[in-house]
């Protein structure tokens, strides 16, 4: 049985009745994840792969077992799962490898949507400027949704690659990612799926979705900071040049040239963050034990309550869709008050939300606001969290009487 109250006990940071509603920025970590990291450093810490003493064997096993767990969770082969520092590095890895390796050349076109997080926008834009490729932007509607016809329009301009988010972090829109991948595949367009927000909330099987690449971060799904992953289809990864160069990813180095290791190591230069992968693996094990249907229903319900109750308050404006394309993230403003003041006020109620542009300036510009407050729900949130926030918002005129 899925019980948020029960689950909450695994998250000690939430003990003091904190309504933590900034989960889209980073989630809290359950005890098993924190303990796994500690256990690793107390009992298994060593460098991996290259040594054969006992600690090194333990560390290597822990490292590779995490890889298998995570690969299995998203339906990929372990060799197709590259450990990175997080979504941002995963996407930069792709962009640099494509541009520097010549898989994308001057004159090519790259499409991204205006709903992207800066991490899936700026690498393409800036390297395009440097390497002479052209950006094609897929527009959203006023709620931040992407229509398949807009995608088709962009793809039919002859783009080589489409980078898009499965779920937008500013407005919580769940994109039709399966259909988008399908359209791209029909046209031979490479797809980079930004899974940073999607994977924490939806069971994604990369083979079923049919994306070529998917990036995601551990810290947004119960795992530690500083670790994430890139999934890539094997044939493509094999064709790509490495991104970072250094130890572990080398076959042989001579003064003349260097040959590289097999997948996934070819893309994993330097001493890996073994403790990070151990925590990531534990996080995935925690998630894999949950009843996902129930979890999604619970999160959706809490976000829906927030949206609909906020909408009834005359001085609140809620952005983004209010239907089934919306999940977990609620962006809003209070008329006459800057979002920074609103989040500060909510803090005094022990409600944690974020205010700002959420690293999604093109999307906010599109909907015509410079900044919003963003409440984002995860499965350990309860009705009490949502009620606390709503009560706070209803009382905001006590502090800021001019509001409304």
């Amino acid at each position: 049985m899925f019980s948020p109250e029960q689950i909450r006990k695994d998250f000690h940071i939430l003990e003091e009745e904190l309504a933590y509603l900034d989960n889209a920025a980073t989630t809290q970590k359950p005890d098993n994840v924190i303990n796994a990291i500690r256990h690793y450093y107390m009992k298994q810490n060593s460098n991996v792969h290259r040594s054969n003493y006992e600690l090194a064997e333990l560390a290597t096993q822990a490292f590779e077992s995490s890889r298998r767990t995570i690969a299995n969770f998203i339906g990929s082969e372990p060799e197709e799962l590259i450990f990175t520092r997080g979504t941002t590095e995963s996407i930069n890895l792709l962009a640099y490898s494509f541009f520097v390796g010549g898989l994308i050349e001057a004159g090519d076109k790259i499409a991204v949507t205006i709903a992207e997080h800066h991490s899936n926008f700026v690498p393409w834009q800036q390297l395009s400027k440097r390497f002479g490729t052209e950006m094609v932007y897929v527009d959203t509607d006023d709620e931040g949704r992407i229509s398949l016809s807009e995608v088709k329009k962009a793809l039919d301009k002859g783009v080589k690659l489409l980078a898009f988010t499965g779920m937008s972090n500013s407005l919580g829109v769940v994109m039709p990612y399966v259909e988008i991948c399908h359209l791209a595949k029909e046209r031979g367009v490479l797809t980079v799926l930004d899974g940073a927000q999607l994977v924490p909330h939806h069971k994604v099987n990369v083979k079923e979705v049919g994306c070529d690449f998917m990036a995601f971060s551990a810290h947004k799904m119960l795992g530690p900071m500083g670790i994430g992953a890139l999934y890539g289809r094997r044939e493509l990864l094999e064709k790509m040049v490495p991104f970072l160069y250094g130890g572990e990813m080398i076959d042989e180095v001579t003064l003349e040239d260097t040959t590289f290791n097999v997948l996934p190591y070819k893309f994993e230069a330097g001493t890996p963050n073994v403790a990070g992968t151990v925590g990531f693996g534990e996080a995935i094990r925690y998630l894999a034990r949950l009843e996902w249907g129930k979890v999604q229903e619970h999160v959706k319900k809490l976000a829906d309550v927030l949206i609909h109750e906020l909408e009834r308050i005359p001085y609140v404006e809620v952005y983004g869709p209010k239907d089934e394309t919306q999940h977990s993230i609620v962006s809003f403003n209070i008329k006459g008050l800057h979002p920074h003041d609103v989040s500060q006020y909510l803090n005094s109620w022990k409600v944690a939300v974020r205010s700002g542009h959420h690293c999604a300036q093109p999307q906010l510009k599109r909907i015509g606001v410079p900044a919003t407050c963003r409440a984002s729900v995860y499965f350990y949130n309860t009705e009490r969290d949502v009620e606390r926030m709503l009560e706070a918002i209803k009382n905001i005129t006590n502090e800021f009487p001019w509001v409304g």
Partner: protein
Amino acid sequence: MDELRELYTDTLMSFYLAPDRKGKIADAQGLEGKNLSCGDRIKVFLQVEDGVIKDAKFTGYGCVISQSSATVMCRMLLNKRLDEAKEMIDRFIDFMQGKDVPEELLGDALYFEGVRRFPSRVKCATLAWHTAKELIQKLKGIQSDAG
């Protein structure tokens, strides 16, 4: 709640609600400043005659702290010589960054004392001041070029 009151004092609120220094100054030099952590922008205008600030205004969008602080600053800059103004600004920035500054030298800026306990908001309080400082530096350059 009490903590919140330390930040949002009635005085600050009143500055926020009556931004009597808000607006452009035609023909005056202006400079825009940004707060990267929230995306806020403020533009400061200074009208200088013979090295003395004859008028000071600002435009822009921001939170209670940044807007009220801009109002207070513009009021305080009026009729100051550029070097006096710069000194006053440095003092305020020091004060907000937690350094010891004699209270009697702060004037109305003392109203922002409460903000010092909220590190993430210090930037809001100093945005207009950093911008004005840069503008003064520019104006001084122009002056000395002319002189």
